[in-house]
């Protein structure tokens, strides 16, 4: 007999089964789709944070840290500065959905951690944070006006600058007191300057 050997059941042999290539393609496409979904999922959940951590830098004494193109703060030596990643959706127990613009260098602020890493300070210029509640108003030594609302573990402040409002959210772990870091927050506020 010439030609392909036909099995007893009339199907093609193992090396040349009809439809096998199509299934392989389907499988690959499906794999790519899953991989794509995983990548996208990573990019909008854990990726921005990882990216920011990878770009963390230790500040040097006297050198300003850019918040946006126009504004900067000078935290002093030993602080950790990294691009600010914004949480978009928090849906526990799934990972939080985060703004991935940081991956493209389009973050709207900076995250500072004190050298002891107990104080976390978010500085942003997108005006998303506005103090609500009992607002305290002060004139800084720099001449800028700051409005802030305090809780035992956090301070939310908005400084009116010539380049627009700059918000600062300083917080320690829930349950701890931020009082020991108030002078530190004051120094940060007073150091706000043109970038």
């Amino acid at each position, binding site marked *: 007999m010439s030609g392909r050997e036909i099995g007893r059941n009339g199907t093609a042999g193992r090396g040349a089964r009809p439809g096998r290539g199509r299934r392989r393609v389907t499988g690959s496409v499906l*794999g790519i789709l899953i991989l794509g979904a995983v990548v996208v999922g990573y990019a909008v959940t854990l990726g921005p944070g990882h990216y920011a951590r990878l770009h963390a830098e230790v500040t040097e004494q006297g050198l300003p840290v850019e918040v946006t193109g126009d504004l900067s703060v000078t935290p002093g030596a030993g602080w950790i500065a990294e691009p600010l990643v914004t949480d978009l959706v928090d849906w526990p127990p799934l990972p939080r959905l985060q703004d991935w613009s940081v991956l493209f260098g389009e973050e709207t602020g900076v995250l500072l951690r004190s050298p002891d890493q107990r104080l976390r300070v978010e500085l942003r210029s997108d005006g998303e944070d506005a103090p609500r509640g009992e607002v305290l108003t002060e004139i800084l030594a720099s001449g800028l006006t700051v409005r802030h609302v305090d809780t035992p573990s956090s301070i939310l402040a908005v400084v009116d600058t010539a380049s627009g409002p700059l918000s600062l959210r300083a917080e320690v772990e829930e349950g701890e007191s931020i009082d020991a870091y*108030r002078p530190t927050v004051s120094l940060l506020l007073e150091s706000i300057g043109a970038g």
Partner: protein
Amino acid sequence: MPQRSTVLRGIRRALTTFAAVVLVAPMSIGCATIDPDPGWRAPAWSDAPGVRSVVQVEPGEGADPAPDPEPDQAEPGFIEGRIRNDAVQLQARYVELPGVHVFNTRVSELLREAIGATGKSFEPEVFPVDAGLGDRGCVPGSLSWPAERVLASPETGPTGGSGTAVTCEIVAMFASVVAVSMRTVTGTEEAITRDARVTLYADLASGGLHEGSAQWNGDASPGLWLRAVEQLRRASGGLSAAPLAAPPEDQLALATRALETVRHLDGGGATLTIPPGLASPELAGLGIDATAGATVVEVDAETLSSWESELAAELRGRAAEPFVGLPAWNGNQGVDCGLVACVAVTYDDGPSAFTTSLLDTLLAERAPATLFMLGGAARGMPEVVRRAVAEGHELGSHTMTHPDLTRVKPEEARREVLEAGSVLSELTGLPITTFRPPYGALNDKALDAIGLPAVLWSVDTLDWKTPGTEALVQRSVGEAAVGDIILFHDTHAETVEAASAVFGGLRNRGFTPVTVTQLFGGDVPNGRVSER
């Protein structure tokens, strides 16, 4: 089955990639983790140096709930005073220092200032004996009381709790220095309009007097104000490092008043209490228009020292020296009978066997009296006469032999009076400037011939009838009015026995015993006098 394995392979690859991305990436990030610096310390506020604490006291609460131990207020020797006057709605508790005229004069000025501030006409008042005004002098702790309590307390406040209260505390006694703080509170139960304090430092050795304000240099008030407001700013959530605006005059005045409240602490430093009303633009931005209660600031020794004047430094250097003690009480000192309800208690016909006992009682009661002595009796008891004068009592002539001066010639009357006066002067070295005619009998001729003021009486206890001590107390304490001269005789045992109750009763009514000359402000008018 083969189809399933292909799909599974795809999924496996995807998961492998995912694992590579998700696991490897964090691992590499983990490798890049920056460790915390355990040696880093957050900076502290540095703009209120020298302040240990600032405590806001709730309105109506005492400014200093745990005052330091006070000097022994029961230290014998203070002349304790108390004025109650319902007409001007005032009560005053104060002390005077024996023989320290400059201190006593200043106390009198402060009392008159408080009275003058009422805007009402003032005449000394007395009350029924159950008024209990014999409890006199400073009230320990009253400097720290809420102003409302000072007004409301029967111990210190005016009747009804509205008006003016003056109270005091002895705040220091060391070396030859006595410091007394006087506090004046004016207002009603609803509102306090004034709460001022003055501390008087008397140096018994030099006779000098200065007020608490002299203890401080020009840095003290602004320094205290700035530190207090700075601390309040921080306690209220202030984040600005901008320096505070300079305080206006009224705010500085609050700090100046606080300097009068200085309370030195064991181990150095002190607390100072700023009255309510502390305010600044910076505090206003933090939601505090003005403090509603007092603000107690504790400063360290170094800061306190930088605020002190040279005088304060000198006093501080002597603070560890033991107190030398107050001068012994002496009845001969200035009394302002326009301020206190004076009454003159007089004793005739001595000295006698009972006079020493009387002098003991007068000393114990710190009560000056006027003794009209017979010249002959005085000659026989010169030590008693000298003691009476040494303790500040006033002596007057009661003639040599106790004649009825209306029944002797004017010349004889003159001789009787002046000779007795000479005897007393010889014994004491002091001039005798008044006399009392025996039986109160005196005509114009005798009066003219004698040429001295004749001191009669307005209250006769008739003690020569020996009615018993209870009757004597009733006849004197019960009958006396402001400015009266009360007649006793120190030749009767029960008169002397009643003396303590008499003076206690008079004080409970609000009287201040004085000599006749003190009753008339140091100058007894010529002619007959029987009351002021």
